[in-house]
């Protein structure tokens, strides 16, 4: 440290301390006339001293001013009432600090060996009168932990890496419980990263950054707001920690941008559509923000998450009937939509350009600026605009250059002097203000931003369907040409037709892939949701997946993302107990959550199974009655009671957290599932766990099936229900009087269903020994289906029967075969049911 800096500090600190002393003396004379502005001034004084002393490695001063600042902060937020002992303790602290400063300037001031007496006194007054009048979102436990951590860090200093790591570990552990701001997690991540680099030349710098971040964390927790200057740190954290999610996260970010944009557009359209709003519309708007928040949380976009959370809370007021759904509400929502759009635009921009809006700009002087925790000092200052300074849709090259570390001043000056026809990039290079590399990078980014209409485009499903139909027709028409006897073989024409056929098949594969996706993507997102939620809540969860290859209509997979997310979150929040509770109840500490999918006849079934606390139907009912959501006289069966969890506004959570509790999530679940023409069924046993079963019609699902011939008809048997196929040996088929045939197969007697007879198809093979047999899986009650012949495996697009078109239960739908004919798809398990009915009748 240079002497110059030290003497500057001494001069500045003396000024601050004198002013603080004056104010405090005034208060101690009239403790009931405490002026909020004056307390703020005091706070800023100590805060500045803390920051500067930290930078100059004056640990004792830093430690002491931190303790004093905390008491002032408690006063400032009215957590603590102003009283004589409080001001007394503060005055003594100021006096001690003055002694320190005098000591630094070389004056022979008496300085005790330790400041513990002062610190103890401050903590004493702070805790003695601290009243829990803080906003609901803050968590006193969390605050205490952070301030303890800050004290410990100051004591340990940058050299004791093990101690710093231990402190941060404890802090991280605490983060698993209690209520923490959404942005706390990335701050923590960043701090841990910095700890890893606590050696060598940058050690002090990194340690100071950790302290600064801790300070920000504290302010954030206390006020329940992200301080304006946190953005930089958080964005930096995202960049630094980006490696963990950015591989493969770009797709997710792209989807987020597309989806959030759409949700915001919807919310805006709703608001612009009228002057007063129905409860449904308010719910819809609320859901839009809630979903954006959820997605942002899962993608670790704390800015967006926080923004959405704030507006969501405002809309909640209207939703709860505390504020009218009038023009003020419209303005709030529109403001929210605009603010959120800017944040989303920022995400998109980051995705496209690949670099940050707030560039780290590693210039030699910057650490001194960034390491001083400038909390109260700059609130509302120039840095506050970091969040708001999102560029217009057309990115200006100057902004991009500034992001890449070119001095904004130089850019602005150059731009002002720019002659027509001159390019700013070239001029900056000639002037030496920017490198060719920077300009090129900015130009590329600008180009990318201009040409990036959208990473994803959303297309109406109807159009996709029509495209698929047309491609299918084209394929059939092409086959008719290719197999036309009039086509001269080995001719140029035949070759051209053949080539056309290959292109067409590629086109078909492509068009099919447009619609069908495995559930894997949707499921894997849930793994992340489980991880984050469990971590946030301090719960242990063992998550497993099954059947993630089950293919589902793309739109269904997309629309199931939100419901599953809400179900998983709610399941962990309300279902899985804390590890101690689980152990006490004789369960393993880690709760089991399983997400699985399979195809069942006409449906795709998605199941979410947990072994948590389960739900008590009567308790749900009582709660719903208490909330006025249902009529107390309404008789309800168990399932109806469980379905209460889907009512909008229903929540058993005592506290609204950022995990759940607003009673909006499950409302989304039912709505989305019903929109997909599916159902949700709940089974739950208190103490044992809960199973949610979503059944979705597979409608356009693609089926792997075996094409079989029965009489004149071709039918499709789903591959997954076929155990094996066989040609019966003589004597294997036995006739049982009055109930048809059975097959002796691997020591089992399996009933035989004659498909042609069951479906009333004429002209089929009657003698089982002349036919082909298929053993059908029927969950332990296997049976055998007799068909004339097997024609081969096909992958077909299922076309469900029209609504109300009567059909045999043994058929589940239709498909169009390669020759253009319609073939029926069998539903084998219903064939045996039908068979049994016939026998019993």
């Amino acid at each position: 440290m240079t002497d110059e800096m030290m003497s500057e500090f001494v001069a500045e600190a003396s000024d601050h301390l004198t002013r603080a002393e004056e104010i405090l003396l005034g208060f101690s004379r009239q403790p009931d006339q405490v002026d909020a502005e004056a307390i703020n001034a005091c706070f800023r004084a100590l805060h500045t001293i803390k920051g500067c002393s930290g930078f100059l490695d004056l640990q004792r001063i830093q430690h002491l001013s931190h303790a004093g600042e905390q008491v002032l902060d408690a006063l400032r937020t009215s957590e603590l009432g102003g009283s004589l002992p409080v001001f007394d303790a503060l005055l003594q602290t100021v006096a001690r600090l003055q002694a320190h400063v005098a000591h630094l300037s070389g004056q022979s001031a008496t300085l005790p060996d330790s400041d513990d007496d002062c610190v103890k006194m401050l903590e004493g007054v702070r805790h003695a009168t601290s009243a829990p009048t803080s906003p609901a979102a803050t968590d006193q436990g969390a605050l205490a932990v952070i301030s303890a951590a800050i004290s410990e860090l100051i004591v340990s200093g940058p050299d004791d890496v093990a101690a710093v790591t231990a402190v941060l570990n404890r802090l991280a552990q605490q983060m698993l419980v209690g209520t923490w701001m959404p942005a706390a997690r990335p701050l923590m991540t960043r701090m841990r990263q910095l700890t890893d680099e606590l050696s060598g030349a940058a050690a002090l710098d990194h340690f100071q950054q950790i302290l600064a971040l801790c300070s920000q964390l504290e302010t954030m927790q206390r006020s329940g707001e992200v301080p304006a200057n946190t953005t930089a740190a958080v964005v930096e954290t995202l960049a630094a920690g980006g490696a963990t999610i950015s591989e493969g996260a770009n797709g997710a970010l792209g989807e987020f941008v597309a989806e959030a944009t759409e949700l915001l557009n919807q919310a805006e359209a709703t608001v612009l559509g009228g002057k007063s709003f129905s409860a449904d519309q308010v719910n819809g708007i609320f859901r839009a923000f809630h979903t954006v928040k959820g997605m942002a949380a899962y993608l670790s976009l704390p800015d967006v998450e926080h923004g959405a959370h704030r507006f969501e809370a405002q809309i909640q007021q209207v939703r709860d009937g505390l504020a009218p759904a009038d023009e003020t509400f419209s303005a709030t929502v529109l403001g929210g939509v605009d603010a959120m759009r800017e944040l989303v635009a920022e995400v998109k921009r980051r995705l496209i350009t690949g670099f940050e809006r707030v560039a780290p700009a590693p210039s030699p002087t910057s650490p001194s600026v960034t390491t001083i925790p400038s909390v109260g000092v700059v609130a509302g200052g120039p840095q506050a605009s970091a969040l708001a300074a999102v560029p217009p849709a057309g990115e200006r090259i100057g902004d991009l250059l500034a992001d890449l570390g070119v001095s904004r001043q130089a850019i602005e000056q150059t731009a002002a002097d720019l002659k027509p026809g001159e390019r700013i990039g070239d001029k900056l290079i000639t002037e030496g203000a920017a490198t060719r590399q920077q300009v090129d990078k900015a130009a590329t980014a600008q180009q990318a931003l201009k040409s990036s209409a959208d990473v994803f485009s959303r297309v109406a499903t109807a159009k996709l369907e029509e495209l698929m139909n047309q491609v299918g027709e084209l394929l059939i028409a092409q086959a008719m040409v290719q197999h036309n006897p009039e086509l001269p073989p080995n001719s140029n024409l035949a070759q051209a037709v053949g080539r056309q056929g290959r292109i067409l098949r590629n086109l078909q594969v492509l068009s099919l892939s447009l619609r069908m996706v495995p559930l894997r993507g949707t499921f894997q997102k849930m793994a992340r949701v489980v991880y984050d939620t469990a971590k946030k809540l301090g719960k242990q969860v063992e998550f497993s997946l099954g059947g993630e290859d089950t293919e589902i209509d793309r739109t269904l997979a997309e629309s199931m993302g939100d419901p599953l997310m809400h179900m998983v979150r709610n399941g962990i929040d309300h279902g899985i107990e804390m590890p101690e509770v689980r152990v006490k109840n004789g369960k393993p500490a880690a709760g089991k959550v399983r997400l699985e999918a399979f195809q069942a006849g006409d449906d795709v079934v998605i199941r979410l199974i947990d072994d948590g606390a389960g739900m008590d139907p009567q308790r749900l009912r009582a709660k719903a009655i208490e909330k006025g959501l249902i009529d107390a006289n309404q008789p309800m069966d168990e399932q109806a009671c469980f379905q209460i969890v889907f009512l909008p506004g229903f929540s058993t959570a005592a506290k609204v957290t950022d995990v759940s509790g607003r009673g909006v999530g499950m409302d989304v679940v039912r709505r989305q599932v019903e929109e997909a023409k599916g159902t949700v069924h709940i089974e739950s046993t208190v103490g044992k766990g809960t199973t949610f079963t979503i059944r979705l019609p597979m409608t356009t699902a693609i089926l792997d099936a075996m094409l079989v011939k029965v009489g004149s008809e071709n039918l499709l048997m789903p591959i997954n229900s076929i155990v094996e196929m066989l040609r019966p040996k003589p004597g294997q088929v036995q006739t049982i009087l009055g109930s048809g045939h059975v097959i002796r197969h691997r020591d089992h007697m399996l009933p035989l269903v004659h498909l042609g007879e069951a479906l009333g198809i004429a002209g089929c093979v009657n003698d089982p020994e002349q036919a082909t047999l298929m053993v059908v899986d029927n969950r332990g009650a296997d049976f055998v289906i007799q068909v004339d012949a097997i024609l081969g495996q096909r992958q077909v697009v299922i076309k469900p029967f029209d609504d109300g078109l009567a059909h045999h239960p043994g058929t589940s739908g239709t498909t169009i075969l390669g020759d253009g004919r319609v073939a029926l798809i069998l539903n084998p398990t219903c064939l045996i049911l039908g068979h049994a009915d016939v026998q019993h009748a």
Partner: protein
Amino acid sequence: MSSSTATPATGLVTGTYLTFQVGPEEYGIEIFKVREIIGMLPITPVPGSPPEMIGVINLRGKVIPVISIRTRFGMPLAEAHPHNVIIVVENRQGEIGIAVDRVAEVARFTEAETEAPPSYGLAVDTTCVAAIGKSQGRIRILLDIARVLGDVTANAGHAA
């Protein structure tokens, strides 16, 4: 049904009809209900469906049901003939094909040329008849297509 006298009164509309032959009789359906006329396609029977629904066809990638006018009105099925066509009409549930022997013409009927159907004496269920068209010395039975299809897709009406 006693309303059979009231229905034709409201059904006495003049307009343009697509006429077709089934056996010796000529029938007509309002032209604006007709989507298209296609040649006979392979029809896949659907087990468990009502008898007049003879199956489903692939209409450019869409699977639509087909009813036979013959079976609908209790006439015996005839030999397949190259003139056989399927008239695709649009009803509430979507498209549905009607298999007929052959199409005849598009005819206009003025009010003077139409009259209420007799309550008896027709080969078809009178509730399905909107009016009788008499022009150029020929008698055409103008059908109320919604009623013709009504029974077949009755379930759909409830489901929708």
